[in-house]
């Protein structure tokens, strides 16, 4: 049995024993003249508080509250000592007759944690002063009849020094003023904490604040009436008793609400079985946690980022929001962003996230899938776009380059023919120009063809093709290709363009003095690494060149990583899986 349960049983046993003893004392009393029904009412109240305390003690962090509530019940039955024949016990009863009221105030102001906030300590202390030292002084100067404890035939007041009506009345007024200040102060604090509470906190404290405030106000009314009334104690006593019975009911209502919240987790489990669509899981959690502001962010371990159910990036939560990490099977699955007051209901949140763990895990996978699909759709669109742009560029290059040269060549040849007879020298000059134009046209066509696809790559493989790239580069390039055999042609082409584009970028932006290229084959993967010693700071998300390379590499299930810390050079690493074919 846990410590919580042990404490709970102890509280119940203490309360029941105290109530039993009090009932026995009252029923065996030789002078009490109250009807037995009053005792039953009296005992019910004590048992309600005791049971409430025992139930509260079972809740996590409810031990202090449980002890306080049971203390209310036990101090309540101490009043029964004023019914016993033994003089000492009777006098003790006179002294502690009103202690329960101070304990009640203490319990109300300590709700729900069981601890008093600093600002609540003074009213509680005033309450204790009014029912302990002031009561002690009153007992020394008054008879039991003055103290309204019995009419006739009761035991002696062992503490009576001398009966002094004036002193007694002055003390009684002082006691009531002290108690009233303490109580009004306490009610103000309760209302203040109500006004400051978040909606979720209000749900928890509502019954206690309203029933508790009503009850202590009724106790005040009852006390005032009983002190100044000469017509007997029955009516005001009944008011006090009724009020007092309301408060443990308030606590019970609070407990029932907590239970309802727990059964909402049961509803959640049922709803989860009905496979909600995207966002449906969030709605189910909103209902069971009763927090309309709840948001669910799913964790993508590969991207090290949170996304929403649709796979869109999830912004960092505002600092005034509460967050709860959801783990499933030892892995981070999601983050709930919620009303910070939910932290008070840790047990409920834990139960809900435990129940929803598997569903959240599934939804996380869905979100990841949606994100990947979206990324795939985008990269496919980009690949098509890049292909179109490439074709436009080729057309433009052909038109501006080789075609213009050939047009000029054609005109020059016509010029030469027209001068052949009239001016042979000019004709020869034109033919020389034509030859030059033809040479240039051929060179441009070769260059263009190599840009489309380097013949050396398909004919001789990656190493000589990269060597040609390295030799043409303006910077010294340290090229290390360690491949036993040729790679699949798609990988060769992608690797070639990764190197070509990277070298172009290095020449354009890096301000580097040397470049290192390493190509190898590790664990069924081909790796291509280009590292420079330049300025770094390249952003792979910017610039269509790197984006296009990423698409090209990812189209082969590969991965392109760019590391470019400011001032420490840039490293581009392309990795391709090599499937056994």
């Amino acid at each position, binding site marked *: 049995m846990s410590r919580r349960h042990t404490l709970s049983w102890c509280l119940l046993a203490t309360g029941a024993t105290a109530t039993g003893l009090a009932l026995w004392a009252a029923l065996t009393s030789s002078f009490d003249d109250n009807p037995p029904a009053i005792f039953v009412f009296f005992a019910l109240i004590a048992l309600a508080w005791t049971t409430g305390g025992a139930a509260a003690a079972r809740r996590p962090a409810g031990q202090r509250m449980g002890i306080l509530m049971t203390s209310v019940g036990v101090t309540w039955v101490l009043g029964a000592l004023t019914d016993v024949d033994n003089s000492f016990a009777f006098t003790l009863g006179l002294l502690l007759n009103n202690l329960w009221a101070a304990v009640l105030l203490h319990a109300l102001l300590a709700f729900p944690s069981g601890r008093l906030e600093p600002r609540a300590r003074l009213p509680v202390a005033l309450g204790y002063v009014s029912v302990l030292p002031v009561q002690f002084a009153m007992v020394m100067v008054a008879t039991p009849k003055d103290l309204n404890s019995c009419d006739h035939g009761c035991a002696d007041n062992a503490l009576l020094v001398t009966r002094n009506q004036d002193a007694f009345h002055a003390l009684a007024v002082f006691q009531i003023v002290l108690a009233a200040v303490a109580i009004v102060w306490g009610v103000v604090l309760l209302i203040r904490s109500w006004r400051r509470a978040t909606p979720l906190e209000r749900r928890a404290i509502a019954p206690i604040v309203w029933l508790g405030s009503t009850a202590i106000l009724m106790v005040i009314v009852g006390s005032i009436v009983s002190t100044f009334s000469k017509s007997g104690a029955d009516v005001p006593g009944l008011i006090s008793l009724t009020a007092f019975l309301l408060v443990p009911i308030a606590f019970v209502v609070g407990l029932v609400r907590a239970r309802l919240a727990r059964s909402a987790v049961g509803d959640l489990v049922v709803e989860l079985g009905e496979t909600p669509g995207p966002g449906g899981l969030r709605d189910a959690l909103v209902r069971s946690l009763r927090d309309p502001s709840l948001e669910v962010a799913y964790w993508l371990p590969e991207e090290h980022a949170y996304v929403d159910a649709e796979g869109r990036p999830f912004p960092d939560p505002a600092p005034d929001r509460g967050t709860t990490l959801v783990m499933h099977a030892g892995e981070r699955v999601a983050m709930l962003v919620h009303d910070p007051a939910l932290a008070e209901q840790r047990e409920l949140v834990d139960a809900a996230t435990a129940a929803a763990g598997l569903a959240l895990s599934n939804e996380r996978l869905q979100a990841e899938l949606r994100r990947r699909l979206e990324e795939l759709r985008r990269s496919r669109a980009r690949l098509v776009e890049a292909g179109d742009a490439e074709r436009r560029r080729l057309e433009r290059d052909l*038109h*501006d380059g080789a*075609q*213009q*040269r*050939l*047009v*000029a060549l*054609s*005109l*020059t040849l*016509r*010029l030469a023919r*027209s*001068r052949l007879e009239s001016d042979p020298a*000019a004709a020869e000059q*034109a033919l020389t*120009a034509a030859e030059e*134009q033809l040479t240039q046209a051929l060179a441009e066509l070769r260059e263009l063809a190599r840009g489309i696809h380097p013949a050396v790559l398909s004919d001789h493989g990656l190493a000589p093709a990269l060597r040609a790239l390295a030799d043409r580069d303006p910077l010294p390039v340290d090229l290390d290709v360690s491949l036993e055999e040729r790679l699949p042609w798609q990988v060769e082409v992608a690797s070639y363009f990764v190197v070509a584009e990277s070298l172009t970028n290095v020449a354009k932006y890096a301000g580097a003095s040397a470049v290192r290229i390493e190509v190898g084959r590790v664990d069924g993967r081909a790796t291509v690494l280009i590292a420079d010693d330049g300025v770094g700071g390249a952003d792979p998300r910017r610039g269509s060149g790197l984006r296009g390379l990423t698409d090209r590499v990812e189209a082969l299930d590969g991965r392109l990583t760019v590391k470019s810390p400011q001032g420490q050079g840039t490293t581009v690493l392309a990795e391709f899986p090599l499937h056994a074919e």
Partner: protein
Amino acid sequence: MSSGLAACEHARMAIRVLIVDDHAAFRATARSLLEADGLEVVGEAGDGASGIAAARSIRPEVVLLDVQLPDTDGFAVAAELAGNGHRPTIVLTSSRSAEELAGMLATTAADGFIPKAELSGAALASFLR
């Protein structure tokens, strides 16, 4: 072959031509070719804006106008020149064929079109207004 050229020779005056094309190599070759054919190249321009400016200041009889220009296209330049007070003969040229440009040539303000490879003084003079 061409009544326009004959008329010109009769007047003992060479036809004055402005070449608007962004390829310097083509401008140079076209200049030699047209001059060999007895025309006078009075100016060259590399883009639409300077072509229009040159046409207004030089007032050539013929503007040989490339369809593809860096700042605009030959059709727009032709429309601009045609709306002007001084209205030269406007002949479009391109390394593309007339079939490729048929849609645009159908509505142009220009007087004619010569594929670049078929350029000659006689071809140019044939469109003279």
